[in-house]
């Protein structure tokens, strides 16, 4: 398993965590070759997660673009309402294999927290989720879901009070309890081997896109679009397509129009170390992380997964940003055109996809990963629309 993607990645962590990272890598190496583990994962993907998810031709949304066809990879239909369960399921099984009775997780939008709470319940593991106070406020429905699912939600009041500081707290908990606890990291970030493991578990998205595109329109799409916070749904989409001719477009949160850099680490940041890996970050002249702003809690993060940094620098993928107002517009487009309420995170990708569709001929096909559903965002959208 490579420690680096080009010059990005690595494991910048206190020594206390090194044994746990080594154990995790060894466990995943043996598990992925173990027919019993693979069978169990495949069975739960079907019977619990609800995979495969459909690839849906969004005809009315495509008409809005007046150009290329737009297809939606429906990760919003995964158990819990987001792609996050793909990873939580896989890592939950790894935790059991490592005999760790306790799970901890960070969450921004709450989707990863919900996914972790669900798998914690299903596997009988104690679960604690760190969540920034700002995010608790704006993603209240997910807090209630986590609690009903038996998880303890720990409010984080440090620093930005969003995802970045939730990860800090989870890392500190892990340092103290590493012998009994698995840190179920929710995005393709963090120290090696997390970016690789998360990408492996999320790659089911891209593999299905490949198969389903060929079935639906006889070939691979011309363009794949996904939103990028830490970047797990995007890497799951891109990774299996990286050696094909499919163009890859990652969409970051641009924040409110005309104010700051939003949370666009790749489009507007520079290389740096955050949460254990060397990647792109939003930082000041002294290397301090900057406050980020985004209407979507799941994208509101100063860093990004190291494989995305590599895909950007190698030119294999492009990264653009979309503003809050544009994401909100796309939220309404999808609701009104297709009867689907997207989460605000993939609404960023929807906006970028429509923008791309306008520039492309009708014969081209665009696949957008619809990474989550929007029920959690109704209050945010209602307030923003006033």
């Amino acid at each position: 398993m490579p420690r680096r993607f080009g010059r990005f990645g690595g494991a910048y962590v206190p020594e206390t965590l090194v044994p746990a990272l080594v154990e995790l890598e060894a466990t995943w190496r043996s598990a992925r070759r173990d027919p019993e583990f693979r069978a169990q994962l495949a069975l739960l993907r079907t019977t619990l997660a609800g995979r495969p998810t459909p690839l849906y031709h969004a005809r009315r949304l495509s008409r809005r673009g007046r150009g290329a066809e737009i297809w939606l990879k429906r990760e919003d239909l995964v158990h819990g309402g987001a792609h996050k369960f793909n990873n939580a399921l896989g890592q939950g099984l790894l935790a059991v294999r490592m005999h760790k009775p306790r799970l901890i997780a960070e969450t921004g939008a709450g989707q990863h927290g919900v996914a972790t709470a669900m798998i914690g319940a299903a596997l009988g593991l104690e679960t604690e989720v760190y969540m920034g106070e700002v995010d608790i406020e704006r993603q209240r429905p997910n807090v209630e879901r986590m609690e009903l699912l038996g998880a303890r939600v720990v409010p984080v009041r440090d620093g930005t009070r969003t995802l970045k500081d939730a990860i800090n707290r989870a890392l500190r908990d892990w340092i103290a309890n590493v012998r009994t606890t698995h840190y179920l990291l929710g995005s393709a970030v963090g120290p090696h081997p997390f970016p690789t493991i998360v990408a492996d578990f999320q790659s089911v998205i891209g593999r299905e896109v490949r198969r389903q595109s060929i079935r639906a329109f006889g070939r691979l799409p011309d363009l794949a679009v996904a939103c990028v916070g830490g970047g797990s749904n995007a890497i799951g989409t891109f990774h299996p397509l990286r050696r094909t001719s499919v163009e890859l477009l990652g969409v970051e949160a641009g924040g409110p129009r005309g104010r700051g850099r939003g949370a666009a680490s790749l489009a507007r940041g520079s290389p740096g170390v955050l949460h254990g890996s060397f990647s792109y970050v939003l930082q000041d002249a002294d290397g301090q992380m900057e406050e980020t702003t985004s209407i979507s809690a799941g994208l509101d993060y100063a860093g990004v997964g190291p494989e995305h940094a590599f895909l950007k620098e190698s030119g294999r993928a492009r990264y653009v940003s979309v503003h809050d107002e544009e994401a909100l517009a796309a939220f309404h487009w999808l609701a009104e055109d297709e009867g689907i309420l997207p989460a605000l995170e993939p609404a960023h990708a929807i906006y970028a996809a429509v923008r791309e569709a306008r520039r492309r001929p009708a014969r081209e096909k665009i696949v957008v990963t619809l990474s989550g559903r929007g029920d959690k965002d109704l209050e945010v959208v209602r307030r923003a629309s006033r």
Partner: protein
Amino acid sequence: MRGTRERGSPSVVPYLLVDRARRRSLRGTVRALRDAGAVALELGFPFSDPIADGPVLAASHQAALRHGTDWRDLLAALRTTSPILPSAVMSYANPLVHRGLDRAIGELASAGASGLIIPDLSLEESPPFRVAARRHGVSLVLLAAPGISGDRVGRIARASRGFLYLVSHYGTTGGAARGSAVDLRPLVAAARRASPRLPVLVGFGVRDRASARHALATGADGVIVGTAVEEQLARDGRPGSMRRFLGEIAAVRAPG
């Protein structure tokens, strides 16, 4: 630094976080710490995401940044403290990486730093930092922690310069969580076998006479006191009080 083994008294290294709001009192504080028996000083550079620090120091990192503390304050602090006590900088990796390792460590050396400690630097990521530190004559101090194998402790001890920083328990700075007590003796012994001349200092959670005595009972050469210094500064940072506070710890003798 080979305190307990050669002088019979432990090497005590206090930690101070650089904070612009405290720049006027820094000289007096460091003199008091020296008078109390400190053999060296650790100067912390605040970071936005101090994952190895417990609640007390994490809050201090945030406060220092709110006060506008920046890289120039670190260099100014080094120029103040290094004539009084040998000074090592503790910085998370990113401020060094972002500035460029060679430039950053060169600037620290010019300002008087004799050592550099990076709490989020694992052995695997350390080679470029070691190269840059060697070029500028700065000792890169590596950390070892509970849970790692004797073999790994040995490799870390051989790569570490100045001393080996041994983390005392499973957890962040400032205090041992319940049930996190660890027998450090095998780790100290492994470090000694690999690098007999390298002093071993125990840190994270050494806060008073009892915890210092406990740390020294492992055969270590000294202790690093961080959170407790920070708490004392907040309670009563006058030089006399600081001297009394650290003097208590410096007076501890290794048992046996």
